[in-house]
């Protein structure tokens, strides 16, 4: 049934848990739209024929609606629209709030390619490997102009903004290869900014990860054996560790729990931070990124607004690396168990 509907409506195959939710509402909304347009059209047509002009100067009755009619005109559409909104908003909240146990992947748009990086693993261009039946959270940024990450089969899309992270998540339901398109105009080769998501069965994904790991270790040993100066591909967190030193972060932040000019990095990730304006905020990727780019935006209580901005000094991947490094500095009280429901605050 819904397969036929999908054919008629030209909907691509459905390959994520969100796609199922979206399509149900889609049928409801598009169905009502067609019934309504046909209804109005047919009513009008009927009136045209029923009330044809018979003599040139024909006069007509003075007809005005009573209050009840006008009330119906307003309330019937309003009820429909609000129901759509309610369902749509529920699903939207769901897809913008990743579950706690989601696997993270960094996505970076760049004219005109997509780069993917796994915190623990390999980097890649234009091919994203993910396991099926496991939530995957995408942390999306851009290196130059706006892009938008779109996977029709998953029904998800999220803009990539330079200097910021946005997030969206999905759970792929069946192994296969799905197209990624860029939907925010980004210049000359915008329409060639394609990539693919390869969804693997969970075992195959583990296998693939190991393969990549091996390749990387191999590469590293080769590099060590080889006395050439090619640096090994470091893990993101390792890169981040170096960057915090070279970029001067450690002049003001410690990694051992001691507060200094700024808050310590130790245990910072996922902490509830009290802000100078009395609010609290959960430290997540978005907050850390924002604190690098616009340090004054959310000042932690007790600290001065003295940190310089790193806007323009750090590239997207460097920011991601620092975030990953900070994530590794967790203290014991950070939960590692998977949760039942969403736990991240939506970005910003």
């Amino acid at each position: 049934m819904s397969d036929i509907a999908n054919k008629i409506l030209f909907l691509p195959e459905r390959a994520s848990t969100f796609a199922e939710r979206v399509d149900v509402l889609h049928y409801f909304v598009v169905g009502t739209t067609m019934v309504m347009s046909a209804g109005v059209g047919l009513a009008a047509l009927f009136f045209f024929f029923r009330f044809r002009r018979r003599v040139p100067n024909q006069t007509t009755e003075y007809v005005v609606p009573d209050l009840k009619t006008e009330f119906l005109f307003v309330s019937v559409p309003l009820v429909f629209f609000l129901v759509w909104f309610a369902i749509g908003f529920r699903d939207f909240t769901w897809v913008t709030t990743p579950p706690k146990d989601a696997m993270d992947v960094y996505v970076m748009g760049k004219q005109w390619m997509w780069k993917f990086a796994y915190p623990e693993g390999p980097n890649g261009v234009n091919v994203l490997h993910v396991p099926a039946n496991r939530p995957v959270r995408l942390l999306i940024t851009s290196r130059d102009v706006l892009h938008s990450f779109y996977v029709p089969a998953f029904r998800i899309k999220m803009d990539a903004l330079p200097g910021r992270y946005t997030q969206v998540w999905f759970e792929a339901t069946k192994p296969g290869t799905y197209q990624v398109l860029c939907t925010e105009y980004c210049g000359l080769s915008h329409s060639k900014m394609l990539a693919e998501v390869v969804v693997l069965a969970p075992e195959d994904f583990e296998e693939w990860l190991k393969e990549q790991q091996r390749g990387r270790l191999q590469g590293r040993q080769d590099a060590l054996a080889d006395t050439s100066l090619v640096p090994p591909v470091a893990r993101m967190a390792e890169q981040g560790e170096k960057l915090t030193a070279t970029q001067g972060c450690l002049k003001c932040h410690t990694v051992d729990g001691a507060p200094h000019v700024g808050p310590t990095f130790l245990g910072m990730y996922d902490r509830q931070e009290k802000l100078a304006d009395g609010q609290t905020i959960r430290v997540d990727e978005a907050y850390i990124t924002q604190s690098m780019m616009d340090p004054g935006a959310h000042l932690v209580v007790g600290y001065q607004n003295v940190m310089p901005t790193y806007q323009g000094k750090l590239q997207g991947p460097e920011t991601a690396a620092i975030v990953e490094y900070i994530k590794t500095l967790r203290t014991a009280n950070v939960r590692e168990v998977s949760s039942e429901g969403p736990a991240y605050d939506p970005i910003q």
Partner: protein
Amino acid sequence: MTPSSSPTAEGVLPGHDDAGGHDGHHHHPNYLVDGTTVKSWLLTIDHKRIGLMFLASVLFFFLIGGVFALAVRVELLTPGPTVMDAMTYNRAFTLHGLIMIFLFMIPAIPAAFGNFMLPLMLGAKDVAFPRLNLASFYIYVTGALLMIWGMLNGGLDTGWTFYTPYSTHTTTTVAPVLFGAFVIGFSSIATGLNFIVTVHTMRAPGITWFKLPLFVWAIYATSCIQVLATPVIGLLTLLVVGENLFSFGLFDPARGGDPVLFQHLFWFYSHPAVYIMVLPAFGVMSEVVAAFSRKNIFGYRAVAYSSLGIAFVGFFAWGHHMFVSGQSTFDAGIFGVLTMLVGVFTAIKVFNWVGTVYKGAVDFRTPFAYFCGFLFFTVFGGMTGIAVGTVSLDMPWHDTYFVVAHFHFIMVGATLMAFLAAFHYWFPKMFGRMYHEGWGLVSAALIILGFNATFIPQFLLGNYGMPRRYYEYPARFQALNVASTAGATLLAFGFVIVAIYLTYALFYGRASGKNPWRSKGYEWLSESPPPTHNFVGPQPTFPEEPHYYVAPKKDEVKDV
């Protein structure tokens, strides 16, 4: 050549014929012949001549925009390169969008037909500030020339939305075009102000607020939006020009700026701008449906108030263009709900238009045919707008062809239908001549068909996942693209027919007489074409509601 339905009026100057049955006012020449030098046109302060000059200009730009539309459609016939390279394509869709929006749709109905009809509908001699009116035309021309100069010298490839940081980094010539848009904004504001003051101060005795023709209500609501929203895009374009030329860094994250701020400012104008385009269309259609079904408007007050309602909530819905821009989920919810309200106001109008036909006396003429097309485009286009306003559904649809189809249905479909209906309905009023009804109906059918054939495949393309602004596309999208291009050809063909028979009618059309539709709209009380100061003799008074087609009581004698 198209045959005129009656060859009799050959050579008769409009205004010099008395087919309307009134004693002709031979010593009050109509506005078309009162002064025939080029100067008398270019320096005129007669709102009707200014309206015609606007009309000629917007038609010219519609032609150019249409040529670019066809170029875009032809390029998309095949998945790979077809007739142009990527850069040319990116410029072509940008120019198409820019010209159609800023130079055609925004001024089309208010500046051309609004200028012409508003004073007539108010029983006024002219608009409140005739010289400002003329200035507004030249500001528009100046802005248009600037834009075109920029497009010819470098061209730009940002899309009409100019999203930063792309628009501040691209090597194409953004600055003059944006500056042109800035200048045109002043024209929009001046016209809007002029209309607001005119409606407030120049209504003839008897025309109370609730006796205003609905076209006037619509233009009034539109003018309010123009005056309030246009300054925002004005400032924004200046800021982007500054960013582009002097690297301000307001919207560029590499300099500490925020690209999303640009989007907020942009849509704060451009969302209401959609209503600048469709509200006048709604106004025209209220007039047309009443005139051709000879009925009072079913829920006059509801239709009038809903224009104001749309104008008002239209200001608070801009965020629905940004559901996936990193905006918070909470914001998305707020903008989502507000978007639904716009839909409700539009629904009121639709139901009342259909209600107007109920118990009417329908004469199915060309303008009425456009009304039918309009109803369909408005309902389908409007409802798909609600659909994309449904946040979870917008996630897959955003920036795909579904959105392109949606906004063409509502903005272009509705506006174009109204523009053509207005043109046909008021053609005899403006020129005193009739066009050929048969060709009118045939081309209306072609245009409505062609429009559907162009954009229905685009809805499906969007469902299928094709992003907008794509020069090349995966092969699976081809069939629907070919269908759309075929539809566009049909559509273009329809326009060519209209252009031919209307041009013919302009010179050789049968004299129409004063009021060929026997309409009770106030504008028909003056001669067709009207004399220079609209009404001859003492100031007219307007005892009845507009569109009051009720049988007169026995003792009152009425002429129609």
